[in-house]
């Protein structure tokens, strides 16, 4: 039996968006209510996934798979195939939660062109969910690209003074990365065909053939490394890793609050998710040989330190939070490329944490901005006197973001650093060396956040304009409650999260760290390879795997090139 829960979660926001099109745009209250109902509904609908997933968490491979390979565009071998594992499960839950919170937080912030705003926001939500669910490379790429459009409009229409510049920069940067990825995808597609005779974009099929490129005499390490880089640029720009991060501060500063929350909370995670889902299992050998991994680790460390240092000297609160994202995401990439199960678990958990804490930080900045229309730190001071509830929530979120024990940030960072520390050899250096370089980032995080807190909240109210600020409304408190609950939950009892991440990260680490003898003939490789990444490719239920089987062996409808078979193409 096919389970359609993923499709339902995926398309709920889109249904809301389509419904909104039929509401007259003058009726702002109705639009807000409908958008919020669908956003909350999208979150509630994703909740049944939690117990359902919990039951099957230890099973290998992807769960809740729906759709068969090549069922969407048979003539090129693209399929509508969805499925999740522990990693994407957590990210999907984060997306539905943050999507709801951002839409709730926009209630008073967005006053003009309300209808469009919510329509684009809900479309964006579907695009992001699709990225995390797609098990077909083509489907993934479509969601990956399509999601840029609503984000571009959100920044460009409802953004700050330099919105046009920021929106175009965001779009062009991410597109430049992803078109190179498209070429990489096409290469893998042809490579798969040359080995198996089947044209398909199915992820599970490509998992088997892509790692062979490295040891294939026809291509070899250079091509494999170039391919790795074509994916790397797409994901690194999205994360963003140093030195591809320059779009981020602009986009964040200009975006409306909810846009920033989604941008930091979910969009950046697509980059790290891409590394985990594609780069690692596709090109394990590239990471183990040559200097690629070394440079990625170096870039991660630079991002951690540089992001933190730049945060320290920001005068604009939002820009400070934006640069802190660069630093935090540096930890995530560090954990990923440590290639240990522990590092990977920590990295995914830290991604969730970053979504919670940084999402909350952007909401916090947004609340002050909505009241005072400035984000200059020097404009504020002594805010805790006039807004005590706000100050308390801010304190908790700052502590969570800087990684104080008992709150979520600590668990993630500690696991990443532990996972890195324990690796004996990362790109020619022992793991503790990398850890040592990364640790100052934690200290600096405390510095820039506490200093910010001191300047904004402590002391007496110096600026007369701040004396009349009113504290949080119930709606605003409601946006923070789920985030606070999650922050404490992960901080106090992270065990369930690690249990969910245990299976996928161990499988992934096993695939990535599998020893491949360097001098194997291709004939041997062809017989040996399918068994090796079985952990990644196995499908849980027998029903699904038997459905997938004929698809993999089905002859493709793709027209053969005229040069190879001129007679066959004639019909």
């Amino acid at each position, binding site marked *: 039996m096919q389970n359609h829960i993923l499709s339902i979660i995926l398309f709920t926001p889109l249904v809301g968006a389509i419904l909104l099109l039929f509401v007259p745009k003058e009726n702002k209250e109705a639009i807000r209510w409908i958008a919020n109902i669908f956003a909350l509904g999208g979150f509630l609908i994703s909740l049944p996934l939690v117990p359902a997933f919990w039951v099957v968490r230890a099973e290998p491979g992807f769960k809740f798979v729906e759709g068969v390979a090549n069922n969407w565009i048979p003539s090129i071998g693209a399929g509508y195939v969805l499925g999740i594992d522990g990693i994407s499960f957590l990210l999907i839950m984060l997306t539905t939660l943050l999507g709801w919170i951002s839409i709730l937080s926009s209630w008073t912030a967005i006053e003009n062109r309300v209808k469009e705003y919510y329509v684009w926001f809900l479309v964006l939500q579907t695009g992001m969910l699709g990225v995390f669910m797609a098990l077909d490379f083509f489907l993934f790429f479509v969601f990956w690209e399509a999601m840029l459009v609503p984000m571009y409009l959100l920044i460009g229409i409802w953004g700050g003074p330099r919105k046009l510049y920021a929106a175009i920069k965001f779009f062009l940067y991410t597109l430049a990365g992803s078109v*190179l990825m498209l070429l990489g995808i096409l290469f893998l597609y042809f490579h798969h065909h040359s080995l198996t005779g089947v044209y398909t974009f199915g992820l599970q099929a490509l998992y088997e053939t892509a790692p062979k490129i490295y040891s294939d005499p026809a291509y070899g390490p250079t091509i494999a490394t170039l391919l790795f880089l074509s994916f790397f640029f797409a994901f690194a720009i999205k994360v963003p890793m140093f030195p591809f991060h320059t779009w981020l501060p602009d986009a964040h500063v200009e975006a409306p609050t909810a846009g920033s929350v989604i941008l930091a909370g979910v969009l950046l995670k697509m980059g790290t998710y891409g590394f985990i889902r594609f780069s690692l299992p596709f090109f394990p050998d590239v990471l183990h040989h040559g200097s690629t991994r070394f440079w990625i680790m170096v870039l991660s460390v630079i991002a951690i330190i540089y992001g933190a240092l730049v945060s320290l000297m920001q005068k604009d609160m939002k820009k400070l939070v934006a640069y802190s994202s660069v630093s935090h995401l540096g930890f995530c990439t560090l954990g990923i490329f440590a290639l240990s199960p522990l590092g990977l678990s920590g990295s995914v958990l830290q991604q969730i944490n970053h979504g919670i804490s940084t999402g909350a930080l952007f909401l916090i900045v947004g609340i002050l901005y909505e009241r005072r229309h400035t984000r200059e730190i020097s404009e504020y001071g002594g805010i805790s006197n006039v807004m005590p509830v706000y100050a308390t929530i801010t304190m908790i979120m700052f502590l969570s973001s800087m990684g104080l024990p008992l709150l979520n940030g600590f668990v993630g960072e500690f696991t990443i650093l532990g996972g890195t520390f324990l690796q004996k050899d990362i790109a020619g250096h022992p793991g503790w060396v990398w850890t040592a370089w990364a640790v100052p980032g934690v200290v600096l995080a405390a510095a820039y956040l506490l200093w910010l807190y001191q300047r904004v909240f402590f002391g007496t109210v110096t600026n007369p304009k701040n004396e009349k600020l009113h504290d949080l409304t119930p709606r605003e408190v409601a946006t923070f409650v789920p985030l606070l609950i999650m922050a404490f939950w992960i901080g106090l009892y992270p065990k369930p999260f690690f249990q969910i991440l245990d299976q996928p990260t161990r499988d992934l680490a096993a695939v990535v760290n599998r020893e491949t003898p360097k001098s194997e003939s291709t004939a041997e490789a062809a017989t040996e390879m399918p068994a090796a990444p079985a952990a990644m490719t196995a499908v849980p239920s027998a029903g699904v795997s038997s459905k997938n089987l004929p698809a993999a062996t089905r002859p493709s409808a793709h027209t053969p090139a005229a*040069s190879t078979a001129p007679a066959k193409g004639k019909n």
Partner: protein
Amino acid sequence: MVWTDYLLALPITLLVLFALGILLIDFMLPRDMKWANAVTAFIGVCFSAAGVYKIQAWMGKDSPAVGGMLNTMVVDPFSIYFFYLFLAGTAIAILMSVRYLETENENHGEYYALMLLSVAGMMCMASGFDIVLIFIGLELMAISTYVLVGFLRRDKRSNEAALKYLLLGAFSSGIFAYGLSLIYGLTGSTNLAVIRQQMMHRAFDPQYRPVAIIALATTLTGLLFKVAAIPFHQWAPDAYEGAPTSITGFMSVAVKAAGWAMLLRILLIGLAPMRSVWVPMLVFVSIATMTGANFAALTQTNTKRLLAYSSIAHVGYMLLGLIAGTVTEPNADGIKGILIYLLVYTFMNLGAFAVITSLRHRNVAGDDLDDLNGLYSRAPVEAVLMLVFMLSLAGIPPLAGFWGKYFIFLSLISTGHYVLAALGVLYSVFGLYYYLKIANAMFMREAEKGEEKLPVSLAMRAALALTGLATLYIGILPNRFIEIVNWALGIAQQASVAKVIH
């Protein structure tokens, strides 16, 4: 003349009859009934399409190509595909023209008659298997278009554009004819299949090789001029800007598609043996086209001019599909990419021009980038459709334009042209910038001339709905269209075409 000859010429004959009919009826129509000309032309297009369908049904699945008129024309799935494409483009262009001609106060029957005649010329180009017929078709199309470009008699820009287009077009036709005459001298035949056979020996015979190369270069110049590839593109921005907007749209899709049909026929059949010579030339032209057009488009402030450069840039991408392949054989995916590109381009580019056409009313020319400012508040549906067309032109999935680029890059990757592929995709990112300029103007700038609603005629609404739906539908569910193109790609099996001719 046998019975099949009449059948094969049926769509062309119908078009010519309707064109003459319009000229006659036009005399009798009072001034406020001129819309009847558009209706007649539209019916003519529908009849012609029915004629094409008749041929298609008669051919069945078994005989993929039929020669007729003493083997000067061949009707195969490739021709039929292009027939439908021309007719679809023309039908939409007619819908766009109705209100526009009234606004310009140039509502004459010749306009539609010339349109139909130029389509008749295009059909000769697409189905021509004899360089004489191809040339005649080309001239019929070109001369009709020259007049259409200058149709706004009272508009200086239109006159200037028509004159430029006429002079450069005649010049290039001359060069083209010179190339064709050299080919005839070399091979002793005007039939493409015979030319192909003769060229196999002659092109590599040291005695004839210099002549063969000159023949190729001059022919190629003529062909590249018609599709507006750099360095033979100078006419395009001026002609596009000056022509009536509906004609700009018509030229950018139907005329261009006809140029491509002719180019593919000549290069893939007649001059196929010289592939090793023309591929390097096309590599140069393609890179020059992508570079020049994308850079030139960046600074344009006139929407029609911007779209002219964008359409030149698209020619650069399409040429890549011809380059993909080995030294002797083209890659089927590349040719498929070109055909799909022309299909999706017909809808998305006509759609874009339809939106610009609808901006023309009373005293507003409507073709300045600033005229798009705040379009969203004045006409939300048009603005969203324009956004769809722009993103589709930029090649963002899941919109139709993506599929053209997809197959082109697919063919480049599969034949190992990695550098060209990387260059192509990076230029497409570049292209996004100027398409977003239009989106920015519509969505993120305020309208200068108040919030008045934009009046859109019923025919224009139909054109917009058609193009918009097609762009979305082909984008999301392209499978059917890919199969149609596979079917049309009889041209990939040149051997079978040549066999039918003898």
